[in-house]
């Protein structure tokens, strides 16, 4: 029997090849450190700089449009700096300090790194409603990925809903691809963000981007319908219509305001949640930061976590957008290299700190303007599926939470909510919200979800080689 395992050693292992991870990789490589970047996707770039599959041919890259080319400078710098980038590589565990367990192309192995930078990004905040498990209901980012990566429209009549500025680039990508967007529903109202407007002073590149989205929507004769939320999706084998209602300032649906919007694709998202499974597994301390998306690893302005040698950068350190991620990745890369004794110019570090603060300030303005309204959880009826993997309903969670009055870990054990394939990435925040409400507690006090390896499912056969090797 041929044993297929590998052990690699490197100065710095970076998990995630999005804006933060690649930026960190360039900074650290240029400072002279050896770097290995690990990423689960087939192409580097993460979600923000999502690339086309390598199999697709492009005749004229210059005419591809900024959805694709905005990542060219970064990806070009990655190639020029010449670090190792491993795609289709899953980091699934860590059993010794500084050692990551990975699976790549059916082979299991370990990467021993003197420093680890976790740049695992975020995923979308999906809030349940009756019918959200019907085919055709998806996340806005999912629809955008289908178009950007696969050149595939998600459907023939699309409704975008939820809350947050991310709905705008999604709409733009879909419209540019020729999609028919029937309506856009945004839970907030412009007057609610007016008080934040003055704080945008100085963030002119971001303001210009917002105006550009406004133009794109105007050209498509699409007006965002503010103060409306999806309360239900209906259809037989897939979604046929979305039912929306007006909501008050706290997000509670207003009785008698039902409106039916026919569609075959319903994309609903309420911003993003930091992907902290790996930082939890590495033993980093976490704190609850509602403004920045939920549980985040505690970290200093230098991006060091509470675990020696472990840094974070980008969305995993709190939702702040791609430009904050670029700045933080750069800072983490410089600081990690500097800790390894590589010479890093202090002026470069100073300007990285400044850049990071500026981008984080902008991220926080956006986060406050589009904070999730508590009333949007009102639409979750008792028979609504909350855990999509294990098919656990809100009623089961509410009953368990009322009976046990416990933290999410216990309710997870009682109901199986969060124990499926996705490991609570989709339902974890819903479980916390429902548990907090049923027990009269807060989302922070009902605790975060514990994490165990494998972080995502891996084949037993791949690990068997590892065990065989260890035993031999």
């Amino acid at each position, binding site marked *: 029997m041929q044993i297929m395992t590998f052990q690699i050693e490197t100065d710095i292992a970076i998990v995630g090849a999005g804006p933060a991870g690649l930026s960190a990789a360039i900074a650290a490589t240029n400072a002279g450190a050896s770097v290995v970047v690990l990423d689960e996707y087939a192409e580097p770039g993460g979600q923000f700089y999502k690339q086309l599959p390598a199999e697709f041919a492009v005749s*004229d890259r210059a005419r591809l449009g900024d959805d694709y080319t905005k990542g060219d400078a970064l990806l070009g710098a990655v190639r020029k700096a010449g670090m190792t980038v491993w795609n289709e590589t899953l980091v699934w565990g860590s059993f010794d300090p500084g050692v990551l367990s990975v699976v790549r192309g059916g082979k299991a192995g370990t990467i021993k790194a003197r420093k680890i930078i976790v740049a695992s990004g975020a995923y979308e905040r999906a809030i349940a409603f009756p019918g959200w498990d019907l085919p055709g209901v998806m996340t806005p980012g999912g629809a955008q990925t289908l178009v950007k990566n696969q050149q*595939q429209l998600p459907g023939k009549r699309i409704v975008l809903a939820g809350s947050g500025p991310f709905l705008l680039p999604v709409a733009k990508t879909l419209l540019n691809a020729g999609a028919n967007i029937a309506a856009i529903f945004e839970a907030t109202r412009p007057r609610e963000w007016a008080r934040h407007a003055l704080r945008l002073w100085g963030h002119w590149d971001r303001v210009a981007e917002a105006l550009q989205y406004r133009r794109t929507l105007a050209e498509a004769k699409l007006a965002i319908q503010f103060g409306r939320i999806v309360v239900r999706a209906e259809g037989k084998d897939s979604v046929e219509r979305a039912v929306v209602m007006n909501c008050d300032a706290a997000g509670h649906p207003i009785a008698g305001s039902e409106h039916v919007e026919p569609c075959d694709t319903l994309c609903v998202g309420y911003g993003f949640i930091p992907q902290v499974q790996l930082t939890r597994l590495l033993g980093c301390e976490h704190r609850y930061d509602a403004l920045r998306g939920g549980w985040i690893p505690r970290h200093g302005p230098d991006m060091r976590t509470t675990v020696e040698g472990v840094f974070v950068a980008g969305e995993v350190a709190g939702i702040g957008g791609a430009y904050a991620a670029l700045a933080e990745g750069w800072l983490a890369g410089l600081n990690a290299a500097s800790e390894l004794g590589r010479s890093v110019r202090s002026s470069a570090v100073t300007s990285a700190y400044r850049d990071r603060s500026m981008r984080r300030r902008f991220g926080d303005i956006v986060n406050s303007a589009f904070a999730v309204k508590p009333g949007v959880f009102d639409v979750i009826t008792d028979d609504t599926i909350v855990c*999509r993997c294990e098919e656990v309903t809100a009623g089961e969670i509410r009953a368990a939470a009322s009976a046990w009055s416990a933290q999410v870990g216990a309710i997870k054990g009682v109901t199986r909510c969060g124990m499926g394939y*996705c490991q609570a990435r989709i339902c974890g925040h819903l479980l916390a919200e429902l548990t907090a409400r049923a027990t009269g507690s807060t989302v922070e006090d009902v605790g975060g979800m514990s994490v165990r390896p494998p972080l995502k499912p891996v084949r037993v056969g791949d690990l068997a080689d590892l065990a065989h090797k260890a035993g031999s």
Partner: protein
Amino acid sequence: MNTASEITPGPPVTFKVDGEPLEARSGQTVAAAMLAAGRRVLRHTRHQSKPRGLFCAMGVCFDCVMIIDGEAGVRACMTKVRDGMQVVSPRSFEPYECKS
């Protein structure tokens, strides 16, 4: 699609879903190829046998898991089609047949 003149998918491939042949282009994911063929239901759930389709489309939610070339629990959104690939759509709680 307005970028169609500039982007050409890879060479044609044929794969099978529940024994039915589907045409696709290499570089496409199983989920996108099925969507292009008008198939939105990727599986039925284990307990309630409810239809499920593509949800996050980026490997997070595992709602698109199918049985691909004999292996259960494989994400259709993260798996590119290959010529001759055999895809099976999971249905309720019947045991998955896995090749050794």
